[in-house]
């Protein structure tokens, strides 16, 4: 299949699959809701037909206060992290880059935990995602700077630096949580393994601000990403201020990763899988890759979260563990492919 047709089919498939997954995720759960009723209720809220949709009061409450905010948040977090993965892969010129692997996610978690520990999160609006953003940015800059100390950034050098920074940030997170008065196993699990349990509209609002702004910024800069992916010499020779461009993109990526982590904890591998899998299908250019990865990442996390709350009806599985169960084998396969090409 030629490239434009393959791209069109892929994006069309994602545009069908994502709303379908959103609908299923709203319908399925401990209390199942009829999909047709969910659809009618959503249409009703949009001013089409009866607002009730035949779900009844309990059904309405579950849909509007429990399921829908959670599903929308899953889509935002997944889409955002996927776009971050695609952007990081261009900046580091490395198809294996991912916010979790490069310390961005763990850095964001550390920032968020610090905000909780110091009590800012409860007092100031957006303090949690902003602290997570700062944590993500510090981790990103550390990996970026350290991996460049030796001159050229190699695949293994980058991944090892990311590993070290991630381990350091996760260690900091664990220590802070253990030192906190309100220490609970659940809190540690949330920040280290991710989850969307009990997330409501307030979380959606505070996450959406930074995620939507960040994603739109990266999409607007998609041509800059394309030029950066050509390498430092060529990007400079084409007149791009490389350092400023890289820092700007890393800042937008850290803002998204920060907001996503503040809302859902660590959700690793989403960026790696979505961007890595879609690049051969939609091409490497940002203007196609970023929107497509957003849809794919959203799909992935909506389904993962659906799995997290329905695979075992007695307990909720950690979301980040589920994405890791899928992501780690994918990463190993992709790494083998990359090594063979090298």
């Amino acid at each position, binding site marked *: 299949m030629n490239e434009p047709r393959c791209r069109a089919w892929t994006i069309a498939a994602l545009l069908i699959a994502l709303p379908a997954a959103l609908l299923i995720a709203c319908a399925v759960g401990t209390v199942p809701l009829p999909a047709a009723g969910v659809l009618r209720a959503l249409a009703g809220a949009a001013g089409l037909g009866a607002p009730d949709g035949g779900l009844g009061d309990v059904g309405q409450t579950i849909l509007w206060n429990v399921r829908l905010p959670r599903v929308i948040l899953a889509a935002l977090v997944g889409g955002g992290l996927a776009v971050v993965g695609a952007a990081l892969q261009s900046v580091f010129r490395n198809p294996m880059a991912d916010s979790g692997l490069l310390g961005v996610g763990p850095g964001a978690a550390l920032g968020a935990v610090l905000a909780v520990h110091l009590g800012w999160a409860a007092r100031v609006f957006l303090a949690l995602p902003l602290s997570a953003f700062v944590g993500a940015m510090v981790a990103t800059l550390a990996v970026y700077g350290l991996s460049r100390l030796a001159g050229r950034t190699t695949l293994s050098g980058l991944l090892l630096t990311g590993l070290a920074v991630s381990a350091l940030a996760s260690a900091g997170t664990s220590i802070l949580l253990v030192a906190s008065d309100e220490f609970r196993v659940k809190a540690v699990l949330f920040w280290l393994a991710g989850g969307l349990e009990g997330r409501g509209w307030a979380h959606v609002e505070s996450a959406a601000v930074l995620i939507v702004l960040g994603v739109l910024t990266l999409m607007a800069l998609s041509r800059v990403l394309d030029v950066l992916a050509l390498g430092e010499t*060529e990007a400079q020779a084409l007149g*791009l201020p490389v350092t400023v461009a890289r820092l700007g993109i890393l800042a937008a990526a850290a803002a998204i990763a920060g907001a996503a982590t503040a809302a859902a904890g660590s959700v690793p591998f989403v960026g790696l899988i979505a961007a890595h899998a879609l690049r051969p299908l939609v091409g490497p250019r940002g203007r196609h890759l970023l929107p497509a990865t957003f849809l794919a990442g959203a799909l992935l996390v909506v389904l993962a979260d659906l799995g997290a709350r329905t695979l075992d009806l007695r307990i909720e599985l950690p979301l980040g563990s589920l994405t890791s169960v899928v992501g780690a084998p994918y990463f190993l396969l992709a790494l083998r492919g990359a090594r063979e090409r090298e």
Partner: protein
Amino acid sequence: MSIVLEADELRVYRGRVCVLADVSFALHAGEALALVGPNAAGKSTLVRALAGLLPVAHGAVRLQGRCLAGWARDALARTVALVTSEEEGPTLLTVRERVVLGRYPHRGPFRRMGADDDAAVAQALEETGIAALADRQIGRLSAGERQLAALARGLAQQPRVLLLDEPAAHLDIGHQLRLFRVLDAIRSRGVAVLAVIHDLQRAVDWAERIVLLVHGRIAADAAPDQVLADPACAEAFGVSVSAHPAADRTHPFYAFE
């Protein structure tokens, strides 16, 4: 011929090592200049300094009479194009997408492709003879075709000066001849071409002038046969050079021992 690009007592450091010292020479419009020299002579550094990519410790590079420091990045990239042999863009890009990125200095991050952009891309693909490969992915090209795609990206910038770092590296003889024919066609439009060339015979046959760089300094700057006859050339490469004139050739064949 008017001077387009000029190095004036150029000194460039990489880290603490002085890679170029007191390099002065001029490149004229439409000229074919070959930059030769042994490994680690500073050729790639000189080419990058001429493109404005490296900080200059002393002296200056002047483009159309104006110091490079006084040029805006995009205006500079519209006037000087640099093509290296070590380019490693995403292998999934198609040739056309790669060449379109050569319009970045003209379009910036936001402007859509205009008629002039389309025309420049089409001309670059046509001149390099790879229009038929336009929709193929870079990763599926041979090394020679990839080099031509990189050159096409440089041409799409519509520069007045084309700087090439080892354009003939990895190329078979057929692709080499094609590449240098392409360069001659570009020069006929008044574009100055400076190429780092390892094959001295190729440099003699193609260039109008050769600059010999040794240990970061210019050891010779003259017509090709004069440079090859200069004892500095034999000394620089640690070989003996002998010329063997042939009746039907402008330049003699050279033997190196």
